[in-house]
């Protein structure tokens, strides 16, 4: 069709100069990588614009308005400004580590995009069969950059920020990894495209099977990316700018890009695993089934980006609404709430799968259709799974509430006090209030 034509045309053009293998394994991946990197860099730049606009609207302001219509060119102006700024390295800094730390951060964030399935078929660079592990592993390299940056700056604020971030990211990584296991049990694959395919063939988003897992993933994703209310490593009001206090110009902007890219990745993983990735009801039937393959891919891509934006908006929304946690409270949430609930979630997911399979064929109830491509369930099976998921959410909440029943943090709301209002007796006036008539 119309959208198919240019791609075939490029193929024809390339076949004149290269062999088919070179094109498939070298040229096309490079085109894809180039496209994704450009798009992601643009997306990251415009995520800053989006954040500034959203925060502005929340705060009764207009946000950037001067550069271009509605300030749309602001990210470009910012980029140019940051590129032309002085590349300042503090005298006492460890020069080489200081020099390389931002690159590690940005590389770790961008490499992860190679396995993110933005859409079916050609909309994903590579579909590794351990995609999810790859994402978790590579994105956790980002913490190394933060530690190195904080350490090499030779500044106390940076050091404190780096130490905070390492503790924070390591503890939330655990909860993040554990929360994904439930969904993996349903999908039966670690490949990100495979997870989406499993949801597509089952015609369901895993958020309805795994409400608890989704919540844990979302919270630990925010904490993992050092976003408010967990933005302790760069808490402006305490640590000036945390680990990147000493950074300026383009090196600082690399950290900034890494932060936004990491945020996009966390949202992308949440979308892929819990919100069905590019899958949306009826899209396949309306496009691919009728032979419009590229339309299908592009529509799926747009669906994925829409879902991504929704999660990103959630990130922005939380950041501009909530105050910041304190370091010890952050650790409490990670270790006392998220990790136990993630563990309970695994047990419940296993239990749900077991119950669904055990019910199949019992008194003529049919729950499982096939186990070939993830978990393929009938209507009854889905209902059972949803009930189990909600029960898991409720029971985990009850259990953790019971454990923390007497703790101070749990009972914070009851500590909200009302102040006394007293009407004090009047003392001797310091000033004569009503002027006597005969003052002259």
């Amino acid at each position: 069709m119309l959208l198919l034509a240019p791609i075939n045309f490029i193929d024809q053009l390339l076949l004149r100069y290269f062999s088919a293998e070179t094109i498939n394994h070298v040229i096309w991946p490079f085109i894809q990588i180039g496209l994704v990197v450009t798009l992601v860099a643009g997306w990251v730049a415009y995520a800053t614009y989006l954040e500034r606009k959203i925060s502005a609207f929340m705060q009764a302001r207009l946000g950037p308005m001067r550069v271009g219509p509605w300030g749309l060119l602001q990210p470009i102006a910012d980029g140019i400004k940051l590129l032309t700024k002085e590349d300042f390295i503090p005298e006492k800094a460890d020069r080489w580590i200081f020099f390389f730390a931002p690159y590690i951060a940005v590389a770790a964030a961008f490499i992860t995009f190679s396995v993110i399935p933005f859409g079916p078929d050609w909309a994903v660079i590579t579909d590794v069969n351990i995609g999810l592990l790859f994402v978790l592993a590579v994105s956790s390299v980002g913490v190394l950059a933060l530690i190195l940056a904080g350490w090499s700056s030779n500044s106390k604020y940076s050091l404190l920020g780096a130490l905070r971030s390492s503790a924070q990211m390591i503890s939330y990584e655990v909860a993040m990894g554990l929360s994904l296991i439930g969904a993996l049990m349903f999908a039966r694959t670690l490949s990100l495209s495979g997870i989406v395919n499993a949801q597509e063939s089952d015609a369901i988003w895993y958020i309805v099977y795994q409400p608890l897992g989704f919540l844990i993933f979302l919270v630990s994703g925010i904490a993992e990316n050092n976003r408010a209310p967990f933005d302790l490593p760069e808490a402006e009001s305490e640590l000036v700018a945390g680990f990147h206090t000493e950074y300026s110009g383009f090196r600082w902007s690399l950290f900034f890009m890494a932060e936004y890219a990491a945020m996009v990745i966390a949202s992308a993983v949440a979308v892929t695993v819990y919100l069905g990735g590019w899958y949306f009801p009826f899209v396949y039937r309306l496009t691919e089934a009728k032979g419009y393959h590229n339309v299908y891919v592009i529509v799926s891509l747009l669906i994925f980006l829409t879902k991504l934006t929704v999660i990103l908006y959630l990130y922005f929304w939380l950041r501009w609404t909530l105050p910041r946690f304190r370091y010890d409270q952050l650790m409490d949430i990670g270790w006392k709430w998220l990790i136990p609930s993630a563990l309970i979630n695994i047990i419940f997911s296993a239990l749900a799968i077991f119950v669904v399979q055990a019910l199949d064929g019992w008194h003529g109830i049919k729950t499982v259709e096939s186990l070939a491509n993830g978990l393929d369930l009938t209507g009854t099976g889905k209902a059972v799974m949803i009930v189990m998921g909600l029960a898991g959410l409720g029971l985990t909440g009850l259990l953790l509430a019971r454990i923390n029943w007497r703790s101070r943090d749990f009972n914070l709301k009851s500590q909200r006090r009302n102040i006394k209002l007293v009407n004090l007796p009047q003392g001797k006036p310091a000033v004569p209030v009503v002027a006597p008539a005969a003052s002259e």
Partner: protein
Amino acid sequence: MHQVEIATTKETLLDSPEMVLNMGPQHPSTHGVLRVILKLDGETVMDLDCDIGYLHRGMEKIAENRMYTMIAPYWDRLDYIAAVSNGLVWVETVEQMMGLVVPPRAHYLRTILTELNRIASHLLWLATHALDIGAVTVLLWALREREEILKIFERQFGARLTCHAWRVGGMPNDAYDEFDADVRRFASNFPKRLDEYETVLSENRIWLSRTVGIGVISGEDAVAIGLSGPALRGSGVAWDIRRARPYAAYADMDFDIPLGENGDTYDRYLVRLEEMRQSRRIVVQALDKLPDGPVNAKLPKIVKPPIGDYYHSIEGPKGEIGCYLVSDGTAQPWRVRVRPPSLINLQALKKLCLGHLVADVVAIIGTLDIVLGEIDR
């Protein structure tokens, strides 16, 4: 030969020295050029010392070389957030030394405008305090509200921040024409806006966990240190100069004093919020009762208070602003001394902070509501 001791045992290896962290004078949340030297064990504050004086301008010495009527604008620059209150303490001290009787209309207008200034100052405190704890949006909301007051100030005094509001003996001019309507519009909008701001913070779990039980000071300790204003009332001590020694038109006003229970950051937060509501109440009352008449007393050509000394204080937004004045009978004061509430409240910082984390230090500096212009003078 100098002997270097090598750490060999496990205890000595783990016994790492504390880290000394310089917070300020260029730090986003020390509210100016305050330098706090923290001794940290991990992130726990082991010891703390304040270094002040980066904004010292010698106001008290300058005052010795100026005529009495020329000093008031300098006083605006002490606590630049509450210039109207600061100006009031100076003119009232001089008036009382001179035995001047100020017309009632001036007293009522002074009451209205200082209370508006109290609201403005508390709003800025709310904004920065929330920002310190990480709630950025409240900053903009509170500043939007403060803007309404600053607009009234601009029309009345011709300046927004350092408004040279008062003259010895009254006011430079009467209230402008739409003063009544402007203030009433602000007063009718303000309570529901404040409720809205409160919903973001007062019930918020994170806000509660950051403020409840942080920086606790008992009423006795607060009195011993000499705290005043909301910091004192947060600890449950019922002391308000507007009631204890009424000045301006406060004797005619009906208002309540909010008192906290535990003396923690959260109580001080609630006390200040309630004070804003009470201030609004005073403003509306004073507007209703506003008498007619002149706004200026008759003054001699040169203001020369009689020989002697005098102390007068008012309840500023931050606490008791006092002014001690020694006159030698000439047109210039012999000695002036300001009692700055922020400086004395700042003395409580060490007591409040010890054993807390770095993040709490920021919250506690915010809750003391200090202004460095006033501390350093």
